[in-house]
C-alpha cells in the first residue's frame, strides 16, 4: 500500500469536513462566472437581456456560435491564434537549446550572459512594449504574424527553468554519446530533450496557454483585421455588450473551453512545474 492510500484510509477529522465544505462553496463561487458564460452562450437574445436574469437557458440555441464563424471572422482568428501557438513552440526549442548551452558548456561570458537572462525576468512588459513596437517597425515587421510572435518567442523565466533542470542531467551520458560519434545537435535532440520530459511537458502547457491567451501584444502590433487573434477579435465584440451579450458569451466560451480541456488533461504537470521551479 502506498503512503497516499494509507493517508486516505485514515479517519477523517471533523475539522477537515468543515474546511472541505467552506472550500467547496468558495470553489463554486470562483467557477460561477464560467457557468454563467457557458449557459449564457446558448441563450437566445431575448433571454440574455431579460430581467430578472436566469442562469439556465429556457430555449437553448447554438446560433451565436454559427454567427461567429459565418458572419464574423472567427475562423480566421482561430487559425491565427493556432499559428501563434505553433510559432511559440518553436521558441520553446530555442529556449531549451539555450538552457542546455548554459547548463552543460563552459565558455567565456557565460555567467554574464546568464545574469542578463535573469535581469530580463524583472522587466515589465509595459516598459518594453513601446520600444519593441519601434524596433519591429524599424524592421518593417509590424502587421505580420512574425512580428506578433517574435517578442513572445523567448522568456528569461523559461530559459532559467530549462537550465536548472538540464544541470541535473549526468555529464557521463553526454560524454558517452560524444564517444560514440554523435554530433552535438543530435545529442541535444535525441538524448537531452527526451531526458527533459517533465520540464518540457510543463513548458509546452504553459506556452500553449500563454500563446492562446496573448492579448495586449497582438492588439498593439496587428492593425490589419486579417491578423487578429481570438482575444483581439473578442475584445472588439465588447462594443456590443449592451446589445448582444449572448454573442459575446459564445465567443468567450470558444476561447475558454480549449484552455479548460488542456488544463484538465495536463494539470498534474502545471503543479509539478511550480514544484520543479525550486519553490518547495
Amino acid at each position, binding site marked *: 500500500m502506498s503512503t497516499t492510500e494509507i493517508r486516505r484510509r485514515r479517519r477523517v477529522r471533523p475539522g477537515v469536513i468543515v474546511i472541505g465544505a467552506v472550500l467547496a462553496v468558495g470553489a463554486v463561487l*470562483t467557477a460561477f462566472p464560467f457557468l454563467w458564460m457557458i449557459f449564457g452562450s446558448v441563450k437566445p437574445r431575448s433571454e440574455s437581456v431579460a430581467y430578472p436574469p436566469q442562469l439556465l437557458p429556457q430555449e437553448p440555441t447554438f446560433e451565436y456560435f454559427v454567427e461567429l464563424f459565418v458572419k464574423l471572422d472567427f475562423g480566421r482568428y482561430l487559425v491565427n491564434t493556432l499559428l501563434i501557438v505553433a510559432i511559440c513552440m518553436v521558441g520553446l526549442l530555442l529556449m531549451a537549446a539555450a538552457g542546455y548551452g548554459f547548463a552543460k558548456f563552459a565558455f567565456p561570458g557565460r555567467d554574464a550572459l546568464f545574469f542578463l537572462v535573469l535581469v530580463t525576468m*524583472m522587466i515589465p512588459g509595459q*516598459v518594453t512594449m513601446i520600444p519593441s513596437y519601434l524596433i519591429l517597425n524599424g524592421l518593417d515587421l509590424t502587421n505580420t504574424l512574425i512580428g506578433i510572435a517574435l517578442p513572445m518567442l523567448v522568456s528569461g523565466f523559461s530559459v532559467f527553468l530549462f537550465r536548472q533542470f538540464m544541470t541535473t542531467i549526468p555529464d557521463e551520458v553526454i560524454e558517452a554519446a560524444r564517444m560514440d560519434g554523435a554530433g552535438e545537435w543530435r545529442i541535444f535532440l535525441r538524448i537531452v530533450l527526451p531526458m527533459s520530459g517533465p520540464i518540457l511537458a510543463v513548458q509546452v502547457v504553459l506556452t500553449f496557454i500563454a500563446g492562446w491567451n496573448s492579448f495586449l501584444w497582438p492588439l498593439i502590433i496587428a492593425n490589419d483585421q486579417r491578423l487578429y487573434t481570438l482575444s483581439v477579435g473578442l*475584445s472588439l465584440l465588447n462594443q456590443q455588450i449592451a446589445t448582444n451579450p449572448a454573442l459575446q458569451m459564445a465567443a468567450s466560451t470558444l476561447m*475558454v473551453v480549449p484552455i479548460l480541456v488542456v488544463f484538465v488533461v495536463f494539470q498534474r504537470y*502545471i503543479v509539478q512545474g*511550480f514544484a520543479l521551479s525550486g519553490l518547495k
Partner: protein
Amino acid sequence: MRPRLTGYAFITPAMLLLITFGVLPIAVAMIVSLTDMNLAGLGDWSRIRFIGTDNYAALFADRAFWQAMGNTALFAIVGVPSVVGLSLLIALGLNSSQSRFFRALRSFYFVPAITAIVAVALVWGYLFNTQFGLFNHLLSLVGLPPVPWLSDPVVVKFSVVWVAVWRGIGLNVIILLAALQGVPREYLEAASIDGASRLRQTVSIVLPLLRFALFFVTITTIIAWLQFFDEPFVLTKGGPLGASTSISLFLYQKGFSASQFGYASAGSVVLFVVIAVITVVQLRARRADVDY
C-alpha cells in the same frame, strides 16, 4: 565543432531574441523618452527632435499621470494583501487533506488564472451590467438599491480590483501548494505528538517554512499589480473619467492611442524605476531577514 563554440551555438538564437526584446528596449525607451517622437516621427526619423527632459517635466505636471499613479497605488494596496491573504488561506485549506475531493477542488481555484482575460472580463461585464446584470438582481432580492458597478468613479475601482483578485488567486495558490508539499511531514507529526494543535503547528512550523514562497508570491504579486492592465482595459477602458486607469493603461493610451511615443516612453522609464526600486528594497529586506 569544438565544444566551446558549440555552447555559443546553443544559446545564440534565444539570446539574440532575449536581448532584442528584453534588454535593448530599456535603452530604446530611455533614448526615445528624450525626444518628441510621435506618429510623424515613426515614418520619418528626420522629424524627431531631441528635447531633453521636457517629457519628464510634462509628465510630472500631468494630472492624468498622477491620477493613474494614484489608482495603481490604490489597486496595489487593496489587491496585494487580498490576493496573498486569500491565496494562503485557500492553499492551507486545500492542503489539509490529500483526498480525491480536495484534489478536485483545486482545479476550480486554478481555472480563473489560466483563462483568457478578455473572455473573463466580458463575462464579468455581463454580471456587472446595470440593466440586466445578475449582481444588481441579487441585491434587489435582499431589498438593496442597484449599484453602478462600472460607471461610478469610486465603485469602479473596487469592481476591477474584485475581478483581478479573483483571477490573481489561482497562480499563487499553485505556488503556495507546491511549497506546502515540501514541508517535511515528520516535523508536523513530531509536533502533534508533543500535543501542538493544528493552528499552533500552522503558525509555528508551516508558516516559517513557507517564508521563501510567501516572499516570492508577495513580490511577484506587487509587480503584477504595478503592471495592472487587462481588467480595466476590457471592463472600462480606464473610465469613467480616468477613475480606473492604471499606469500601464495610461502608457498604452499615450503610446498607442495618442501615438506620443516620446511621452509614453518617459512614463515607462518611470514605471521601470519604480518597479526596480521596489524589487531592490524587497530583496534587501529579504537579505536582512535571512541574516538574523
